[in-house]
């Protein structure tokens, strides 16, 4: 197995954010796979979702496999023997790029709650600066699932000349009230944890891990389909007898607690808050009186939109709304609605029809761009 290593790229040009705040300097953690061709025309940017990172594919020296290793790699649907693939950890995240846990040069202490909120469009601006640095004018493709799909869409609108193809999987052009509600419950779990200390918990040497655990448990429920959960866990007991107490009686409780516990050990609470807000704020149609087709009218990319039938977090109807807006704007779009049992998580899992769809799309892109 190919061992991958990440790089840190420093930026010293001030960055004005949508909130009005300015970051004087920041750095990004990135990984790349494959080789940039002589024309610099085969680059694919992979945008990550809430809890992922720049480590998209391959295995690190520590033995960690990338979050989309089943999709990206030599001979895989996004074939790194043909494409130069870039993974970047978003600003405000906690896997190596500048974020709330980074040291604020002004105070010499972690930013904590002082790290500014960033939006999906801010991320895209930062990614564009990264491409400038890498000497890439135009992406063959920008691709992402869930929140990553939002970034892909934002790319097509913000930098139409710089994107040949845009792939948004299990994504949406705006969160529903229900989505925002789930996010806020998760945020409240963190914000009300006594160890949160207004976001400056680093100064106290603690982490609001109870809040993070609950936030992750809520999130995790929404990533699975009801049927999937019923099939995997049903009412299976973790022990033989009911305890008549508030401990763990059912397998699903044990599973969710384990997931929450694991998450709280590696994820930063401020990052969770920041990223869920970026999700909530994303609404490119808002600047066009809610008309998404007008927002997409100036795009120059061709689009692949993919949804999964049992995804109720970012339901097929939300993907269909994007497809309709693209059709209304007479933009080229292909839409796959994959019949898959695994809910929102399906975008990360092995599914032959899903992977074949992505494989076919990139094969078409190679024909179109002569790669």
């Amino acid at each position, binding site marked *: 197995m190919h061992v991958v290593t990440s790089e840190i790229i420093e930026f010293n040009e001030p960055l004005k954010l949508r909130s009005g705040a300015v970051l004087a300097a920041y750095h990004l953690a990135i990984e790349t796979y494959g080789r940039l061709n002589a024309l610099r025309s085969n680059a694919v940017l992979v945008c990550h979702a809430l809890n992922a990172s720049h480590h998209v594919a391959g295995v690190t020296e520590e033995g960690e496999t990338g979050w989309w290793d089943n999709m990206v790699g030599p001979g895989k649907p996004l074939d790194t023997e043909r494409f130069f693939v870039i993974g970047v950890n978003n600003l405000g995240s906690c896997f190596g790029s500048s974020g709330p846990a980074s040291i604020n040069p002004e105070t010499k202490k972690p930013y904590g709650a002082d790290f500014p909120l960033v939006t999906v469009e801010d991320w895209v601006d930062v990614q564009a600066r990264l491409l400038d640095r890498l000497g890439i004018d135009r992406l063959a493709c920008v691709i992402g699932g869930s929140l990553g799909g939002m970034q892909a869409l934002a790319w097509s609108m913000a930098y139409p000349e710089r994107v040949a193809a845009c792939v948004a999987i299990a994504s949406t052009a705006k969160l529903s009230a229900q989505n925002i509600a789930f996010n806020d419950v998760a945020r409240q779990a963190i914000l009300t944890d006594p160890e949160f200390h207004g976001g400056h918990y680093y100064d106290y040497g603690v982490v609001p891990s109870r809040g993070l655990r609950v936030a992750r448990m809520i999130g995790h429920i929404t990533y699975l389909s009801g049927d999937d959960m019923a099939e995997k866990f049903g009412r299976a007991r973790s022990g033989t007898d009911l305890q008549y107490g508030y401990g763990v009686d059912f397998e699903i409780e044990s599973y969710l607690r384990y997931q929450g516990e694991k998450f709280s050990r590696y994820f930063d609470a401020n990052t969770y808050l920041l990223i869920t807000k970026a999700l909530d704020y994303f609404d490119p149609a808002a600047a066009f009186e809610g008309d998404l087709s007008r927002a997409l009218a100036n795009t120059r990319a061709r689009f692949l939109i993919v949804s999964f039938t049992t995804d109720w977090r970012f339901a097929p109807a939300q993907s269909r709304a994007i497809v309709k807006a693209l*059709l209304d704007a007479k933009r080229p*779009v*292909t*839409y796959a609605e994959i019949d898959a049992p695994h809910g929102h998580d399906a975008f990360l899992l092995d599914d032959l*029809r899903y992977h074949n*769809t992505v494989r*076919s799309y990139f094969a078409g892109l190679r024909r179109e761009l002569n790669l």
Partner: protein
Amino acid sequence: MARLLRSDLALVANWVAPGSAVLDLGCGDGALLAFLQEEKGCRCVGVELDADNFLASMDNGVEVIQQNLEEGLAMFADHSFDCVLQLQSLQMVQHTEAMLQEIGRIAREGIVTFPNFGHWTHRLAILKGRMPVSKSLPYQWYNSPNLRFSTIEDIKALARASGFDIVECIALHEGREIAMMPNLFGSLAMLRLARHAPLQAQR
């Protein structure tokens, strides 16, 4: 690369104006749309539910929307295409009349092809007391994907009632055009329709 088409598809392709925007409902493997794109400069979109056909359409370089036609065509705006094709799938749709009206809402022109239930072999089968099974209707009555059975005259009448002029009607049998008594000797009917009534605000 020049593409070759089946004879009925080649006839359909002849009816499509170069450079027009074409929507194909049930586009199969996308071969016709690929031909229209490459040879006639058309802007094409296909609709296909079947996963294998969907992939085949992608591999043919066609933009394709995976959707069940029975769920309606709300995805497609009024007058958003020049021509809508529905080739050998109209008989599989439950609401035939509504589908024809939708075609008229989306485009000025429609091209539909379908098996002719009035073909003499089918009539003969009924006379003998059994439902027909033939090349154009290759299913048993109990496992057929076809929900609607009509003759050429039936579909012409419905098309007129749905606001279309019938510009051309060709009957084929085994790939050849049938000029004499088409409703009796044609097994496949091809209709070229033009919306005559302006779109009404009744919807």
